[in-house]
C-alpha cells in the first residue's frame, strides 16, 4: 500500500475552471516611471514642437489686404473659405485637402515601413497628451512608487488635495486643448474676447466642451486603452511592418538567460551557469507607458516610444555592459546578430523598392498638387444649361436657350471683368440682370466683380432663324480679367431641338 505522502502532488488548476477565466478584464492601471535618455529627450522636443504648432498656429497673422481675413490658418466654414498662409481655397478646390490627406496616408506608410510605429511613439496626439498629463501627474503625486502608494493609501486631506489639484490642472489643460481648436475656425483674437464675454456662438462652447471631455478622459484615464482597443492604426501599422522596419527589440541572444541573482549562479562545483546581460531589474517594464514587457518580443501594444531603450541603457551603463540590450533594430538585423554575423549599417534600409514606391507616389501627389496650385486660375466660369425647357422657340422662328452662368472671382480683390461667348456666329445673348442689351458673338460685356465672390447671371442666348445650326452646337462662355491676365472659358451646348 502506498502512503499518501509518496504520491506525487501537482500544484495545478484547470485554466477554464469557473472564475479562472473572465470574459471581461478590468484594465490594469499603469504607473509609468520617469526615465531619462536620448529618446526621452527627443520625445520632449517633439512634444514641445507639436504642442507649440497646435496652440500657436491660429494666432499667426498673414496680410491678405483689407478685403480678406488676416489669420494665417483659418477654416472659414460660414463663408466656405479655407486660408493657409498664401493659399486660399474655395470649396470646389477641396481636392487639395484630399491630396494632403493622401500624402499624409502614404507618408505614414513610408515612415512606418522605415521607422516602424514612429507616428505612435512620438507624434500621435494621444501619445503627446498622455505625456503631458503624466508630467502633471508626476509633478503633483510623485513618481511611480509614490503614486502607487498614494492610490493604495486611505483617503485623507493630503490625498484629497493632491487628487483635486491634479484633476483641476488636467481639466485646465483639457479646456485649453479644446479651446485652441475653435480658434482655427474664426478670427482668434476676437473669438477669444467673445468666448470669455459669453458672446461666442453655441457651437464654439459645445466644441470646447466635447474636446475638453475627450482630452480629459483619453489623456487622464483611457491612455493605453485608446491605443490598444480604440485606435485602428496599431492594427494597420502592424500590417505595414516588414523584416526591414525598425522596431524596438530586446536582443535576447545577448540578454538571456536573464537573472537578478547573479552571485547565486556560481554552482557548487565553482563553475558558472551561463548568464545573459539582462539583470531582470524590470526597469524596462516600469517605464513603459503601455505597461508591457518588451522582452516578450514584438507586441501589438508596443507604440515604439523607445523609453525602455533609455531605461535599459542607463542600467547597462551602471553594470558596465555595452548599451543596446534593448535597441531599435530590424528583424533582419536581429536575425543576423542572433546568428553572430556582423550587422551592417542600417542606413540602406531607406532605399528599397517598397520605400521608393511610397516616396515616388508621395512626391507625385505632392508635385502634381504644387503644379495645379501654381498654375490654377483665380477666375472661373460655371455654366448650367436650363434643363426644362432645353430650348424655346420664339415667334420669329429664332431659338433661345437659357443658361445660369456663374463667374467666380476667387481673389480678395475687386476686378473689372468681361463676359462673352464664342462659337455661335450671328447669335446674341442677353443678361437678365443687366437689362435688355443684346450682346453679339465675341463681343465683351463689362462686369464688375466683387472681391472673393461668385456672381450668378441668367443669360439667354438666341440664334436667329436662318442661322440655326442643324443640330446641337457646342460653344463657349468666356470670362476674363485683363488686369490680372486671367482668362477662363467653359464649353456648353446650344440646343435646337426639344429633346
Amino acid at each position: 500500500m502506498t502512503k499518501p505522502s509518496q504520491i506525487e502532488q501537482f500544484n495545478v488548476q484547470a485554466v477554464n475552471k469557473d472564475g479562472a477565466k473572465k470574459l471581461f478584464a478590468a484594465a490594469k492601471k499603469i504607473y509609468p516611471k520617469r526615465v531619462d535618455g536620448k529618446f526621452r529627450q527627443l520625445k520632449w522636443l517633439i512634444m514641445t514642437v507639436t504642442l507649440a504648432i497646435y496652440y500657436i498656429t491660429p494666432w499667426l497673422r498673414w496680410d491678405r489686404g483689407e478685403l480678406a481675413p488676416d489669420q494665417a490658418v483659418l477654416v472659414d466654414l460660414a463663408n466656405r473659405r479655407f486660408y493657409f498662409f498664401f493659399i486660399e481655397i474655395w470649396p470646389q478646390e477641396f481636392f487639395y485637402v484630399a491630396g494632403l490627406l493622401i500624402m499624409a496616408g502614404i507618408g505614414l506608410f513610408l515612415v512606418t515601413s522605415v521607422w516602424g510605429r514612429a507616428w505612435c511613439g512620438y507624434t500621435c496626439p494621444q501619445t503627446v497628451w498622455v505625456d503631458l498629463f503624466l508630467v502633471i501627474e508626476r509633478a503633483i503625486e510623485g513618481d511611480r512608487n509614490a503614486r502607487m502608494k498614494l492610490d493604495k493609501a486611505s483617503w485623507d486631506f493630503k490625498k484629497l488635495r493632491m487628487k483635486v489639484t491634479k484633476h483641476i490642472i488636467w481639466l485646465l489643460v483639457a479646456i485649453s486643448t479644446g479651446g485652441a481648436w475653435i480658434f482655427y475656425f474664426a478670427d482668434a483674437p476676437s473669438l477669444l474676447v467673445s468666448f470669455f464675454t459669453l458672446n461666442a456662438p453655441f457651437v464654439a462652447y459645445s466644441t470646447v466642451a466635447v474636446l475638453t471631455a475627450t482630452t480629459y478622459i483619453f489623456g487622464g484615464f483611457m491612455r493605453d486603452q485608446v491605443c490598444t482597443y480604440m485606435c485602428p492604426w496599431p492594427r494597420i501599422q502592424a500590417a505595414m511592418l516588414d523584416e526591414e522596419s525598425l522596431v524596438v527589440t530586446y536582443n535576447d541572444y545577448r540578454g538571456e538567460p536573464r537573472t537578478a541573482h547573479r552571485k547565486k549562479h556560481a554552482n557548487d562545483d565553482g563553475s558558472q551557469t551561463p548568464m545573459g546581460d539582462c539583470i531582470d531589474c524590470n526597469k524596462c517594464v516600469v517605464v513603459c507607458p503601455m505597461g508591457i514587457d518588451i522582452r516578450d518580443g514584438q507586441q501589438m501594444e508596443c507604440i515604439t516610444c523607445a523609453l525602455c531603450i533609455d531605461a535599459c541603457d542607463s542600467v547597462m551603463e551602471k553594470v558596465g555592459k555595452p548599451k543596446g540590450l534593448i535597441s531599435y533594430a530590424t528583424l533582419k538585423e536581429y536575425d543576423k546578430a542572433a546568428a553572430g554575423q556582423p550587422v551592417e549599417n542600417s542606413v540602406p534600409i531607406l532605399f528599397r523598392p517598397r520605400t521608393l514606391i511610397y516616396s515616388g507616389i508621395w512626391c507625385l501627389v505632392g508635385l502634381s498638387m504644387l503644379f495645379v496650385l501654381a498654375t490654377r486660375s483665380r477666375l472661373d466660369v460655371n455654366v448650367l444649361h436650363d434643363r426644362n425647357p432645353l430650348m424655346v422657340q420664339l415667334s420669329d422662328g429664332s431659338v433661345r436657350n437659357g443658361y445660369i452662368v456663374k463667374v467666380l472671382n476667387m481673389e480678395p480683390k475687386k476686378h473689372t471683368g468681361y463676359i462673352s461667348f464664342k462659337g455661335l456666329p450671328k447669335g446674341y445673348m442677353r443678361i437678365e440682370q443687366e437689362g435688355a442689351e443684346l450682346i453679339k458673338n465675341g463681343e465683351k460685356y463689362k462686369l464688375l466683380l466683387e472681391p472673393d465672390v461668385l456672381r450668378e447671371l441668367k443669360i439667354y442666348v438666341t440664334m436667329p432663324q436662318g442661322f440655326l445650326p442643324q443640330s446641337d452646337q457646342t460653344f463657349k462662355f468666356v470670362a476674363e480679367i485683363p488686369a490680372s491676365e486671367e482668362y477662363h472659358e467653359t464649353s456648353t451646348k446650344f440646343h435646337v431641338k426639344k429633346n
Partner: protein
Amino acid sequence: MTKRPIDDVTGTETTGHEWDGIRELDTPMPRWWLITFYITIAWSIVYCVLYPAIPLLKTNTQGTLGYSSRGELDKSLQKAREAQTGLRDKIKSGTLASIMADPQLFSFAKAGGKAAFKVNCVQCHGSGAEGSVGNPNLNDDDWLWGGKLEDIHQTIKHGARYEQDDDTRLSDMPAFGKDELLDKNQIEQVADYVLSLSKGKADASSSGAQIFAEQCASCHGKTGTGDRSVGAPPLNDQIWLYGGDKKTVMESIHNSRKAVMPAWAHRLDAETIKQLAIYVHSLGGGEK
C-alpha cells in the same frame, strides 16, 4: 461544458475555430468596453421611453416627450412662415412695380412664384412652363393676352374663358365649319393662306386671302398680326398653340378652340398670384 482549447503561446482560450491552422484567440474584452455597452443599453431604454420607438399593430409608442418628426417639420415650416411674414406682407401691400424695384422682394417673389407654379400650374403648362398642345409655352415671346407683368397678373387672376369670373379673358372664335359659315373647300383655302402668312409668302390675290379678309382679319388683323385685346393670336409667326400643319389649322378653323384656364383669384391669395405673375414674367418672354 466542453473544455475549450488553450493556445500554448499566450495561455489564452481560443474560440475553437480554425482556418488553415490559424486559430482565433478569445481574449477577454476590457471591462470599460462592457460598461460602455451597458450604458448604450440603458440609453436605448431611456430613449424608448422619451421618444416614439416601438411599433405596435396600428401605431407606435408615442414617447413621453411628445416628439414627432412631423411635428418637427410643422414647427420648422411655421418658423419659415414667420420669417417670411415681413416679405409676404410687403408683397401683399405693394404694387407689382414696387416689388420689381426691390431686388430682395423680387427674388423672394420669384422663388415663391416658382413654388406655387409647381403646385398649381404644371398640370397644364408643364414643369418647365414649356406648355403643350393647347397650353401655351410661357417661356416664349408669344402672348395671347399680353406679356407685360400686369397682363400676366390679370390673366392668372381671372383666367380665360372661365365663366364663373366676370372679368375673365374672353375670346370666341366662331366654329366656321361646324356652324356652316364656310364649306370644307373654303376652309382649306383659308388654311393654306394662314400657313403662307406664317412663312411670309402670302399671296394677297388668292381666294384664301379673300376669305381671310372677310372672315378673319377683324380679329387676327389684315396681315395676321393678331390682336391681344381680343386674345386673337398672331398667325404670321412661327408659334402654333395646337400645331402648324394644315390638318390642325383646318381643324382649328372648323371647330374653333375653346381652352379654358381657371381664374386663380378664387383659389389663391393675392400675394401668391402676384408672385406667380412675377415668376412667369421672369421666364424669358416677359415684356416691359
